[in-house]
Structure formats: C-alpha cells, structure tokens
C-alpha cells in the first residue's frame, strides 16, 4: 500500500474528537489492521499532544475479540496513552471490553444526573456503577462473569458457575451457581432470580449458604421469582413483587416485609 493510500484511509476512517468526556477515537468501517496502521500514523504526527492522556475508543458496530482490544491498548500505551473506555453497538464487544475492566459508556455522570431529576425529592443513592453487562446464554460450570457494574443473565446459571458483580445481579433463569453481588462492599446490592437456588450467595461481606440438597429440590418445586438482600446483618430472600409496589421505595418496602418473614437464608 502506498503512502497516499494510507493517508486517505486515515482521513476517511480514523477520527479523533475532543468531547466533554475527553478524547474519543472513532474507528470506522474497513480492514482492522489498516485502521490500526492509520491510527498509529495519526498519533505519530503529534505524539506530544496525546502523551500521558487517556482516550475512549468508539468502534461502532464492529465485533472485537479480547486479543484485538489488547493490541489497540498496547498500541496506545506505546504513545503513553491509556485506554479507559470502549464504545460499541456490538454487545459482544461491550462484553469483552467489560471483562477487560474497561468502561463501555462515557455517560455515567449524565445518567446519574437524569435519574436524579426523575426521582425528584427522593433521596436516592446511585450504587457504584450503574452500567450492566448482559449475557444471553447458559453460564456453565467453571465459567465466571466478573464486572464492576451490574450483571444480567438471560439463561440458567449452573452449579459451579460464578458471578461477581460490583452492583446487582439479575438472573432470568435458574440461579444455581455461586453469586457475589456488591462485591466492592455495597450492601445495598440485591440478587434476583426466577429460581433463586444458589450454592453460595454473597452480598458485600455477608454470606448465605444454600440449604441442603434435599431442601433445595423441594424449594425448586414451588418456584417464584425471588430477590435476596441484606437486612439486619443477614441475607434474606423474599418473593418478588410487582414493580409498582416496590418503586420508588422498593428497598424500604422489602425491608418492612422482611421483618415479618424470615427466609431460608442464614
């Protein structure tokens, strides 16, 4: 490829913009490796401008693997730039980025602001990390999902699988593996599942163990969606109620009801 061809490519597909959230590098369509070469050239032209900064990467609908993201990260670090966020329309790319500990949105502060307005007078604490990752598959034995925000699974979480979330955990399926919500110490975190039968359930520093195998089978017979949370220093589980009952004061509401009912979780 001639030099001028690279120039064209770089102008067409690599775009660096300054936004209120900092620098965002847009990588458009086209061959991935060509884009990286173009990006390197662009950075090389004014290295001192970028040095020591942090950037977000916008890859549009492109589906990237962890290895590909790592290559970009390494390339940027050569110019002493740190990559802090990856923006993409692809759920897969978002998931990979989240697993690598990168942010997948620039708008955290804006979301908080909007939520604050909607709720109005209510005192509402935004839990650490309102972002979530969503997985639509069976989480099998030995597989693990670890995320600083919330984790949502559409599918079963089998025994031997593990979820560790900084925020809440929602399982649209049977939760039979290990789960740790509020892993960064947030004891306001909750765990919801259509069938809540985890082997080990942790919220912040609290631990609840599954009742014996026999019990849990009987337990699964009468399935109702449940939510587990911390109340009076222990984890309790409650049948899930309609959202309108619970919102906006659903946590207080749950606590009130939990006072009457002690569940199987100790």
């Amino acid at each position, binding site marked *: 490829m001639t030099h001028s061809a690279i120039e064209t490519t770089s102008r067409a597909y690599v775009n660096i913009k300054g936004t209120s959230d900092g620098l965002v590098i847009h990588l458009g369509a086209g061959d991935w490796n060509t884009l990286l070469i173009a990006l390197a050239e662009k950075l090389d032209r004014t290295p001192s401008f970028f040095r020591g900064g942090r950037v977000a990467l916008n890859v549009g609908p492109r589906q990237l693997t962890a290895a590909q993201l790592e290559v970009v990260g390494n390339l940027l670090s050569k110019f002493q730039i740190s990559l802090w966020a990856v923006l993409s329309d692809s759920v897969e790319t978002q998931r990979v980025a989240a697993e690598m500990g990168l942010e997948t949105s620039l708008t955290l502060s804006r979301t908080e602001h909007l939520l604050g307005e909607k709720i109005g007078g209510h005192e509402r604490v935004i839990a650490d990390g309102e972002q979530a990752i969503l997985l639509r598959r069976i989480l*099998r034995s030995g597989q693990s999902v670890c995320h600083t925000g919330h984790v949502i699974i559409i599918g079963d979480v089998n025994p031997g699988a593990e979820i560790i979330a900084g925020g809440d955990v929602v399982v649209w399926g049977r939760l039979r593996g290990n789960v740790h919500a509020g892993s960064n110490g947030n004891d306001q975190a909750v765990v919801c599942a259509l069938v809540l039968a985890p082997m080990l359930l942790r919220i912040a520093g609290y631990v609840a163990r599954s009742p014996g195998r026999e019990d849990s089978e009987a337990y699964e017979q009468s399935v109702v969606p449940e939510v587990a949370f911390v109340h009076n220093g222990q984890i309790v589980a409650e049948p899930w109620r309609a959202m309108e009952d619970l919102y906006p004061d659903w946590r207080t509401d749950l606590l009130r009801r939990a006072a009457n009912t002690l569940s199987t979780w100790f």
Partner: protein
Amino acid sequence: MGATVITITSGKGGVGKTTATANLSAALAMRGKRVVAIDADIGLRNLDVVMGLENRIVYDLVNVVEGACRLRQALIKDKRIENLYMIPAAQSRDKSAIRPQDMIDVCDQLRPEFDFILIDSPAGIEQGFRNAIAPADRICIITTPEVSAVRDADRVVGLVEAEGKGPTSLILNRLRPQMVQRGDMLDTADVLDVLAIELLGIVPEDETIIVSTNRGIPVVMENKSRAAQAFCNIAARLLGENVPIMELEEPSPSWLGKIASWVHRK
C-alpha cells in the same frame, strides 16, 4: 466426500468414553461406513485393548505426528468388520507429545478416505482434551447419571462452546432404570435440565459390557444386549436416521407370564 470427525469426551474419567468410541465405531462400520477410531489418550492408551487390537500395534499416533512412519502404517485394520480401522495412542509418551494442529493435520489426511473419524478423548480438560476436540466437526459428551459426572460434563460443554466447536450432543451412559424408578438415580430429565443439549442416546447399565471389554470384542459385534442395541441406535442417529429413544422400563411379562398371572387371578 470428506469424513465427519466426532470427538467423544466427558471431563470426568471412567464414564465410558472408550467403550462408547469402540462400540460406535464398530456399529458404524457394521452399517457399511468406512470408520477410523483414533485414541487421543496418549500415555494411557486403551482403545486398542477394548477393541481387541492390542497385539497388532506397530506404530502409533505420536510416531505419525513425529514423522517416524507414514499415516497408513499406523492404521490398524480390524479383521472382523470390513472398513473398521484404528490408530492407537502412544503408551510411553504424554499429552504434550502432540499439539491440536497435529490432530487437525492427521484428520485432514484421513478425511478423503473415510466416512467417520471417531476420536477417543482423554479425561480432563487440559492439553489432551484440547488436542482431541481441535479437529472435531461434532462433539459427543458422555456422562453417567451422577451429579459429579454431570457437573464435569457441564464444564466441558462450556469449554467446547468457548472454542466455537459443535454441535454438541449427549450420551447418557450406565442408566439403571430400576434405580430411576425408585427415585435413587438422576433421570434423563434431570441431566438434560442442567446440560440443555441435544440427547443422542441413553445406554443402560449392562454387565455384558464388562465381559466384552475384557475380551476385546465390542458388544455391538456379538450380542443383542440392551447396551448393544442402544449403541446401534446411536450409530443410526449419527447417520441421520430418526430412531426413537429406547424404552428402558422393565420389559412387560411374556405371553406365558401374562396367562400365568391371569390364571392366578382367577
């Protein structure tokens, strides 16, 4: 046309991978297909023993991979069934003697000459397992109705999915219908409930398997036991035939027995 490569794996040891490989290979060959069975359990070879071809080994898979012999020299022809061949594993080496790419190369060489290549995977999820699934077009997971075996099978399904391999189907081995009826054993629904993959067949517990394994004659070759029938049915399903899953409840009494009980009732 090229052969279909089927890897038989389980995670847990002793659930019947080798027995299933030997019997399915023989059953497919008896249906007139050209079949080669490859023992990928390097260092703990025993497919040759189960197939009764132990005394015919000159060269093995590692010899082929290292170029010590030609592939054709390591192919052992079964004299009892037309079109049945096997490639033994080395006994004096370990799993690190071959790489996944070697398995792919060997299978690619064999594909034009065979209809089916069955690979007997070692237990575990390490290098030997990765070697065994590398060339696979489809994967048969074998498990017994035990919680531990099902847990390992779930782990293996997850790993296979992560490698982008499949389709994955299940053989449920050593099921004891009486124990299931008494509620002392996991039943098919319990196993499928966790694994959520296609059921390829159910093989009942059968003493004739032990006898035939020790004698080096796969059960499908010589008797009409229920296990032999189950393996023949699985082979038929691999050929794309629609064979219903065998009823495993106790056989209904013979006509003589029926008359006897009728007379008795009078």
